[in-house]
């Protein structure tokens, strides 16, 4: 058992289910879901997470704002963040990475790519 806690921040329930379903294939991951950036921040302050996966385009607070706020929190300076988004432009990728995201994956969802990235970042 790895015992890692993972937060999935995504406003689309379908997409969230797809990501959660994929992550459940890695044994020992405890997955918590959040509907948007604000909900994500609430959950991040309530307990410590080892990995964050977030969408960019979300209501209330978008993923980039979330990445930036997470990186300013001393508890999450080193926590891996994966951005999963429809935005495929190079400048969007660069912006997310500059704000502190570790990996940037574009939609349509590619389960294998997500799993490979998570395994690489978490060394599992």
């Amino acid at each position: 058992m790895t015992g890692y806690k993972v937060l999935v921040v995504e406003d689309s329930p379908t997409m969230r289910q797809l990501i959660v379903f994929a992550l459940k294939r890695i044994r020992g991951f405890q997955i918590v879901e959040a509907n948007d950036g604000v909900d994500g921040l609430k959950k991040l302050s309530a307990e410590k997470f080892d990995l964050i996966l977030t969408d960019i385009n979300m209501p209330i607070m978008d993923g980039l704002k979330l990445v930036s706020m997470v990186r300013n929190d001393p508890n999450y300076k080193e926590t891996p963040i994966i951005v999963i988004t429809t935005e495929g432009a190079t400048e969007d990728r660069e912006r997310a990475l500059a704000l502190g995201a570790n990996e940037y994956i574009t939609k349509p969802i590619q389960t294998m790519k997500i799993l490979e990235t998570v395994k690489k970042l978490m060394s599992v």
Partner: protein
Amino acid sequence: MSHHDEENDAAGRADEFLQVFKKGAEFTQDLLKENERLRFRVVKLEETLKDKGHEIVADGPEALELKKKILELEQEKEEILGQIKVVEEENQNFANRYVEIEEENNMLANLYIASYQLHSTLDFKEVLKIIQEIVINLIGAEEFGVLLLDEKTNLLEPVASEGIETSAMPSISVGSGIIGESVGSGENYFIESMQGYERDLHKPIVCIPLKIKEHVIGVIAIYKLFEQKDEFTNVDYELFTLLAGHAATAVFSSRMYSDSERKLSTIQGFIDLLTK
């Protein structure tokens, strides 16, 4: 085929693949053992040669016998090396098949989630929203519309869209143009080449008729994919067909449910008026 059957089928293929892989591993083990045995024989023969070196005459019968054995061993070695190469190629094929099966499993898992979400509600608007989420997140479409068939007028009316205003989308007669023909025939339509394509609301790049068996109730017309998605994969084609069926039944049942709810509330209103 139901999801359960598809999952069983995938699991069956995974088992079959594992069995073949195990056999390959056992065969490789046997070859390695054989190789080890032959190496041992060569060493023994070399020792024998060394011990008897002074007694062996260069062209004598013993020397000839040893040369023959060496030749045989060389041939066996070549055969083993050839077999190892074949096994390595087979292993590569197994690895490729493993990746293919993984992809198929992922596709089935995605489809399971998609259909589960589609059938998780009887709210018509929510069903349309889920269809949009699936087309965006699983297919990778940036601009598309969902049109439903009005059986009274035989017109396809736009009910939802992404990247285009729904009100800007045209109503289309069944049988007319690419969208109408696709609905008329019930066949998926894919543009031959996306090179140089410019958006025309009557000429989408993909049309997926929403079908319940042979009964078409609407269509998904795609006009633009994400820039990172430049072509369709085989998985996409399977996804389109399977999704069209699930989306169609979800739309049909939710629409029937909201119609019946509306009728019920009207009847209830009348009853209330009459009884008060």
